């Protein structure tokens, strides 16, 4: 049972300064090691004594993976250790990818954004409280989902993409990065790999214990944003119980290219409806060639929620998703 304590159990602390050293240490310790970025997710686990790694690899001194620089082909490269505040307040990001700046700026509180990193934000674990209380559910390696039962408290849980586990991805920046078609660059001792953002997040059907492709030994080094669509319209909205310091109940991110009043290209992504950010491919195909109007939005909302399956306490999410998708098309500016 999880008991919040002040004392974190002891571990060996490593503070590498180079990516190569970090991945070597990560490989050396495998699943008994832990990567530390801003620590906001990490220290919860440690203080609750639910995760007890033998070694912690602190990325704070690895300068090569911090900061924002110009990418190839007019894009932008954001180091995984860049703070959420730096992402939200970067002139380059605000100017060319306002969708991401908005999403990063809506994360929690200023203090959390100062400390939290973009890499940590997208690699963070789910907030399902059964799991975070240390209950031995599927995601913790067990054989039951406490949140999917008829008596469970599952207001925040998913309405699609479930496979035994019904937890949702909590990140605000994740849907924005998928909508911007970002690429995640991952280093390990066997070299560097790149994943389209949509493939970086995985569902419980593939691996019930992970939310991303990152395995022990994998270091997310940077996020590459491709050149932005010229004159793109965008929309980001986060719904939460409180106006500050709260995870989203649902968020939507859209990026749209409109010419002569018609949608030429579009990417719409909804988060906190599934264990991963959901890109709405069917909606995107249906609305290409149409005006970004109330009617198109209405139709898109209906398509978006097809196949949604609610739990005991979260049927409100269907109506919410329908409306958010509508607004993400109608109100994109």
């Amino acid at each position, binding site marked *: *049972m999880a008991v919040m304590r002040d004392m974190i159990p002891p571990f060996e602390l490593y503070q590498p300064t180079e990516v190569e050293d970090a991945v070597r240490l990560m490989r050396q310790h495998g699943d008994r090691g832990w990567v530390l970025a801003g620590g906001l997710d990490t220290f919860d686990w440690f203080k609750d004594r639910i995760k007890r790694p033998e070694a912690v690899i602190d990325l704070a001194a690895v300068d090569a993976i911090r900061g924002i620089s110009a990418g190839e082909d007019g894009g932008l490269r954001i180091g995984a250790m860049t703070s959420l505040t730096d992402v939200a307040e970067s002139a380059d990001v605000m100017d060319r990818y306002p969708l991401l700046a908005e999403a990063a700026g809506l994360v929690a509180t200023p203090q959390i954004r100062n400390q939290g990193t973009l890499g940590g934000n997208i690699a963070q674990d789910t907030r399902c409280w059964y799991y975070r*209380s*240390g*209950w*031995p559910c599927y995601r*913790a*390696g*067990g*054989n*039951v*989902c*406490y949140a*999917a*039962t008829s008596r469970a408290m599952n207001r925040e849980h998913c309405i699609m993409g*479930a*496979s*035994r586990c019904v937890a949702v991805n909590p990140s605000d920046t994740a849907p924005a990065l998928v909508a911007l078609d970002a690429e995640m660059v991952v280093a390990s001792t066997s070299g560097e790999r790149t994943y389209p953002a949509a493939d970086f997040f995985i*569902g419980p*059907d*593939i*691996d019930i214990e992970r939310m991303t492709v990152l395995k022990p030994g994998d270091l997310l080094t940077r996020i590459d944003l491709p050149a932005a669509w010229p004159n793109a319209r965008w929309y980001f909205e986060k719904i939460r119980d409180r106006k500050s310091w709260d995870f989203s109940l649902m968020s939507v991110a859209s990026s749209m290219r409109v010419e002569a009043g018609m949608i030429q290209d579009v990417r719409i992504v909804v988060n906190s409806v599934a264990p991963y950010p959901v890109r709405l491919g069917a909606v995107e195909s249906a609305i290409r060639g149409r005006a970004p109007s109330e009617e198109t939005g209405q139709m898109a909302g209906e398509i978006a929620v097809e196949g949604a399956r609610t739990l005991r306490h979260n049927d409100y999410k269907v109506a919410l998703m329908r409306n958010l998708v509508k607004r993400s098309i109608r109100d994109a500016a």
Partner: protein
Amino acid sequence: MEFLRRALNPWGENVPIGVSWDLIWAAVIIGAVFVVAHALLVPKKVGAGEIDESEAKGLPDRIQRHKPGARGFHWTMSVTMFVLLITAFFPVIGIQFPWVTIHWIAGVLLILTVLYHIYHVFAKQDIRNMWIGRRDMKEGALGLQAAMRRPVHRPRAAKYPVDQKMFHHAATILTLGAVVTGVLMMYRVDNFLLPQNTYMFSDATWGWVYVIHGVCGIGLIFLVIAHVYFAIRPEKRWMTWSMINGWITRERYLENHDPERWAVTEADGAGEMEGTAAGGGTGQPALSDKA
């Protein structure tokens, strides 16, 4: 090495949650060691009897060993078994894909094939063919000595040699264990056949359900390795072929089977009469075990 995976449930009880995955490797290693040791140590031909020409009189050239229904069952079950093993264990060893739905659907198909098999055995075959009697045990003991290169005369078998009967029974127990627990586990996962019901058992009982499912699954890894190995061993390939085309030659029959224990009449000829021959038009199973 741990045998069980355990966890503290929300009430602080230490309950089993499944079998330790290290046992997968144990089964693979034991299987590999068994195959290598057997291949190196056991002579290819273990003292088969000579053919007595007088016994051959009146026997057809080809003798039906497996009816089409039995062969259909065998291969359908093999496919579902491979699918079940792959979907169960590949994700554990790091080859990840969405496995649960394919797994339980293959599980349901396995159950259907097993039900068909039970019907077929009672309706069209003779269940006594698989019983292990005193003569089988003697045959087994002598076979073992022959395999250890002792100078013994190995008796001929009934329709099924004792090692095949033992394999059959081990596979039956493990498959039934996996099937019964698998059906219960269907109550845990989303499917359109059974409703989700987590509260059916206590945490510890559920844990044992998962343990038994895992143990049976891991046991089947070993059995499948051994079975495939014997199926491709040169001196056993004629049996494997008989599971494909249904028949064995008269020579193979006389060399390996005791006509007293597996009586064959002319009507049991295969080939052009395949599938209808056994029973000799009497409606009775002709390939009976008279032991």
